[in-house]
């Protein structure tokens, strides 16, 4: 008996990780950007003092009743349309019953069998080709109310927990995928693209620090072993508070499940679904609980609410509000502006504001490549460092275009142009004013000639090297030219020196 087990274990040990298919599905909770809560008129504003944004409805006081916020429905439908979902013409509300102190009614109003958004999909790809493009199918997206916040005593002295119900009743859309992702990188790409879409269509601010976007991952492995496919027990990883945490935890968990399988051989039939948490400090997942049989939510239709029906006209009207989605913009930037997929992605993934900024600059300066390079590097660096969004960037598109026009026409060389841009940013100056302030003016042909002659004369050894074929050595002279006159255009200097040296 023992030897049989031993040999099975040895056989498992011979399986390589490359014989494993990682299977991942995601559940994403998105707070919808409404002014008021899902079922009452309390504010959804983040950060108010505890328990100052509640009323009899969202604290579940006896006798209070919910009334659905129309805007939450509209935003949910808009999301569904952007995610290619079937939109329910009739949707209803159900109660999910469980006890927790930050769930005031003892049930959460949710949607069980008639979600507002049905099956849909989201296409993901990696601009660097790290994985094959994939269509992630969506199972559903349903509306529900958020719970409040529990603040537990972390001192381990067993102090009371504090409950803040400000968040209670904030509208959430729970988006559930099919188990269609095959790696942690794909999961991250899915989350990134999803967030991008949600922000593009303006249904959520997706601020993860404030909890506007929260995700859980479901993962297990399919392993080719002994001529059949074996599935490992499904694990749900809860509360992934960043996309990086999502990717790392799923990577970790895939490996952990594989190691565990090699050790014990447990399959999906041997073990119920388990919930684990991601420990960011130690970079491991830890066991939270097995989904015990008592997690019986006793869903049933909420008798306090009535069905909502949505007409074709209403859906069409919402569809009209949806502008181009990120994927369309990528295509547009590639085709119309001739950008490489990677460059297009850099701009599109920064949000709609940067796309518009780019288009304006590119249209006005006439060179989309230059515009893309400058925005992708200079502008993004500034935004990253300052933490600002493009709408707060100090240089207006028209000014940026002015600057780049001079670069394109060689009136201003790159390094000097960057200095000009820095000045424009720092002092909020126009291009002309910044150039003036920096004392930049064109160097006339005769002066340039004399500078070049002087350099050749003062550095005969470099001139010799160049004449001997080390063309690159010209860079050293070009550098020195800038010291003689900072306005000397390096390109012109280089060409002229080479010409003087007969090359």
């Amino acid at each position, binding site marked *: 008996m023992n030897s049989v087990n031993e040999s099975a274990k040895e056989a498992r040990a011979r399986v390589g990780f490359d014989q494993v298919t990682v299977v991942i599905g995601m559940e994403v909770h998105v707070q919808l950007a*409404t*002014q*008021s809560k899902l079922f009452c*008129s*309390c*504010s959804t504003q983040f950060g108010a*003092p*505890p*328990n*100052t*944004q*509640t*009323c*009899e409805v969202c*604290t579940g006081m006896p006798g209070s009743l919910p*009334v*659905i*916020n*129309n*805007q*939450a*429905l509209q935003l949910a439908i808009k999301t569904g349309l952007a995610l290619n979902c079937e939109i329910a013409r*009739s949707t209803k509300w159900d109660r999910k019953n469980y*006890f927790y*102190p930050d769930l005031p009614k003892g049930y959460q109003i949710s949607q069980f069998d008639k979600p507002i958004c049905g099956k849909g999909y989201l296409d993901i790809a990696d601009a660097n080709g790290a994985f094959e493009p994939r269509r992630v199918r969506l199972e559903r997206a349903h509306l529900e109310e958020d719970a409040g916040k529990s*603040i*537990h*005593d972390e001192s381990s002295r*067993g*102090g*009371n*927990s*504090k*409950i*803040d*119900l400000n968040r209670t009743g904030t509208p959430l859309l729970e988006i559930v995928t099919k188990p269609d992702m095959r790696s942690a990188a794909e999961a991250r790409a899915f989350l990134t693209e999803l967030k991008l879409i949600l922000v593009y269509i303006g249904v959520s601010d997706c601020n993860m620090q404030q909890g506007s976007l929260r995700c859980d991952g479901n993962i297990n492995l399919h392993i080719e072993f002994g001529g059949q496919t074996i599935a490992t027990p499904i694990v749900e990883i809860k509360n992934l508070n960043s996309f990086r945490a999502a990717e790392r935890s799923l990577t970790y968990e895939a490996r952990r499940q594989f190691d565990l399988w090699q050790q014990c051989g447990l399959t999906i039939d041997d073990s119920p679904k388990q919930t684990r948490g991601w420990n960011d400090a130690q970079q491991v997942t830890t066991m939270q609980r097995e989904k015990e049989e*008592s997690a*019986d939510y*006793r869903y*049933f*239709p909420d*008798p306090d*609410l*009535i*069905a*909502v*029906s949505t007409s074709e006209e209403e859906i069409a009207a919402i569809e009209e509000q949806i502008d181009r989605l990120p994927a369309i913009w990528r295509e547009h930037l590639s085709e119309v502006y001739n950008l490489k997929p990677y460059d297009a992605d850099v701009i599109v993934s920064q949000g709609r504001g940067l796309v518009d900024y780019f288009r304006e600059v590119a249209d006005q300066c006439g060179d989309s490549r230059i515009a893309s390079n400058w925005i992708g590097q200079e502008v993004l660096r500034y935004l990253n460092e300052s933490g600002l969004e493009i709408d707060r960037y100090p240089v207006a598109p028209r000014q940026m275009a002015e600057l780049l026009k001079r670069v394109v026409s060689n009136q201003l060389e790159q390094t000097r142009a960057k200095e000009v841009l820095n000045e424009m940013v720092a002092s909020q100056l126009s291009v002309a004013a910044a150039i003036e302030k920096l004392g930049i003016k064109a160097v006339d042909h005769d002066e340039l000639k004399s500078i070049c002659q002087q350099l050749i004369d003062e550095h005969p050894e470099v001139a010799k090297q160049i004449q001997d074929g080390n063309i690159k050595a010209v860079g050293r002279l070009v550098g020195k030219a800038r010291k003689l006159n900072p306005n000397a255009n390096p390109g012109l200097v280089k060409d002229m020196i080479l010409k003087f040296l007969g090359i």
Partner: protein
Amino acid sequence: MSEFIDRAVVEQVARLARIHLSEQQLDASSKQLGEILNYVGQLERVTLPDDVEPFFGAIESVNAIRADEVNSSVDRDSILSNAPDSDGEFYSVPPVF
């Protein structure tokens, strides 16, 4: 004893409902629930055509919705004054463990 329920199920239901029942109450509850379930269990024997949809609510209307407008919330003191334990800012509850 009922065909629908036994003491173990009663215990499980009491747990789901978060109601502590003493041993004696468990016995009494098993008996009474059993009798009631035996009575309502007659519904199982009602034969209905397959196309009979459930009727969950006594109003079959649609679309009671409100506009997304913020109204002032209820004053915190007045809300928390009903709480059995609060520090004036938060509700306070015993720890999970």
